[in-house]
């Protein structure tokens, strides 16, 4: 039997029987990703909006920086977080290295620039459209930002999904700061890397198929939610 067929069979078997280890790994993947993306949104959406609306010295530099940081190499982010959380590093006493929290920190750093850059882009366009109306209402800056953010909520869905995609599929950073510890910091992507290094390519690919199925399910769910929400708000 070739590796591909075997991979499909293995992934189905693991999914249908709800293999205990698989469930554990999937749940941790989801938990780390959602927490990291939520944090990144909390930081990134206001920041993106501010960069779109406010004019201040250095604003353009910040825009360029955040655009560039979308391409931050995960391994480098992992190394920096490793050094900071290392026992004799600045945040060593917190004892966070090799914990899910360390993985969330690394992924938040990777996802935040994506949220900032994409949301700024979307809100800049909407701000132009709303410019006269908002000026005639003499709205405060806070109000302007709130309105723009709220009115672009449906377009921002894709932004969040881009962030989710980055976090969910990332392996380099979480491997370094999480340590891929069995039952503790092992997630889908690091499990795939481990099985590849064990030469069990069918299992590795099977896990990859499951990761893809999960990603598609999350996106389908998000799309469904978005359409329902949109219908209700314009009804």
């Amino acid at each position, binding site marked *: 039997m070739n590796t591909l067929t075997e991979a499909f069979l293995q992934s189905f078997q693991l999914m249908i029987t709800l293999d205990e280890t698989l469930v554990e790994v999937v749940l941790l993947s989801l938990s780390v990703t959602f927490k990291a993306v939520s944090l990144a949104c909390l930081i990134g959406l206001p920041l993106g909006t501010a960069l779109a609306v406010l004019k201040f010295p250095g604003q353009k530099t910040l825009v360029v920086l955040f655009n560039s940081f979308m391409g931050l190499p995960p391994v480098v982010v992992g190394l920096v977080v490793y050094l900071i959380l290392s026992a004799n590093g600045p945040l060593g006493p917190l004892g966070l290295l090799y914990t899910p929290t360390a993985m969330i920190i690394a992924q938040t750093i990777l996802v935040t620039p994506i949220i900032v850059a994409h949301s700024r882009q979307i809100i800049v366009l909407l701000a132009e459209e709303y410019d006269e109306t908002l000026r005639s209402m003499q709205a405060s800056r806070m109000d302007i930002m709130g309105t723009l953010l709220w009115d672009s909520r449906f377009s921002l869905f894709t932004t969040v999904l881009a962030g989710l995609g980055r976090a969910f599929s990332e392996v380099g950073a979480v491997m370094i700061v999480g340590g891929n510890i069995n039952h503790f910091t092992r997630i889908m992507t690091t499990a795939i890397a481990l099985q590849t*290094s064990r*030469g*069990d390519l069918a299992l590795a690919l099977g896990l990859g198929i499951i990761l893809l199925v999960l990603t598609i399910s999350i996106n389908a769910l998000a799309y469904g939610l978005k359409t329902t929400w949109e219908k209700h708000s314009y009804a």
Partner: protein
Amino acid sequence: MTRILARWVGLVFLLLGTPAHSSDEYILLQSTTSTQNSGLYEFLLPHFEDVYGVKVKVVAVGTGQALYNGSRCNGDIVIVHSPADEREFVKAGYGIDPHNLMYNRFVIVGPSSDPAGIGKIETLQEAFVKLSKGLAPFISRGDDSGTHKKELSLWAKYEISPTGDWYYEVGSGMGATLNITVGLEGYTITDLGTWLSFANKSNHVILYENGSEMFNQYGIIMVNPDHCPNVNSEPAREFLNWMVSPMGQQLIAQYKIDGKQLFYPNASPKMYK
């Protein structure tokens, strides 16, 4: 069928409730990859954890990185296989109580067609001379791991400088290196444990495995609590003592894949002058 159903029901409950995080006592083991990839820990650690109530969390990296992580206090104990580096680690004050733990051997693997003709060779020196003719790619770990250091020491010993388009320094772990070796129909040097547990052998086989030079000694060292006050030294010492005890040693000898023993226990304290 009922078990599968029970799991689905369990999953629903798990998603509804907050997952309970156990606050068990644990130690962090910085380890070379071969011991983890071979499945030894999955077999061995439950025996220790059940008796002592201490979880052992394993971070598997190359020997160089494991020792580096230990020197930065990110771990309570290390299991590695590069005697010279272990000595340095202890001499620098990063580690205490070094012990020999177990051994196996390094082997040269390559395609069964054996274009370099390693299979018919008597001595390791001849094998390395043949490999350096460049008739097929040689894949080097290139990552400062125990296996990499071993390989470099052998080239040096036979006064061969491994350069040329046949020599690939891949900077990867043993498993990734084996995947590349299989893909390129090349040769590489690997520890026996990783090779026996490696599932993607394709048409590759062991071509050379004799000689005292291919000896592969694993060591266990506690991270020095004087250098790293944060280490969990009590349970780490318990773990070390257990690993070198008759119980731990016997279990190491019992671990087999396809009826083949992967590691041979030989615990003894190491004395550095």
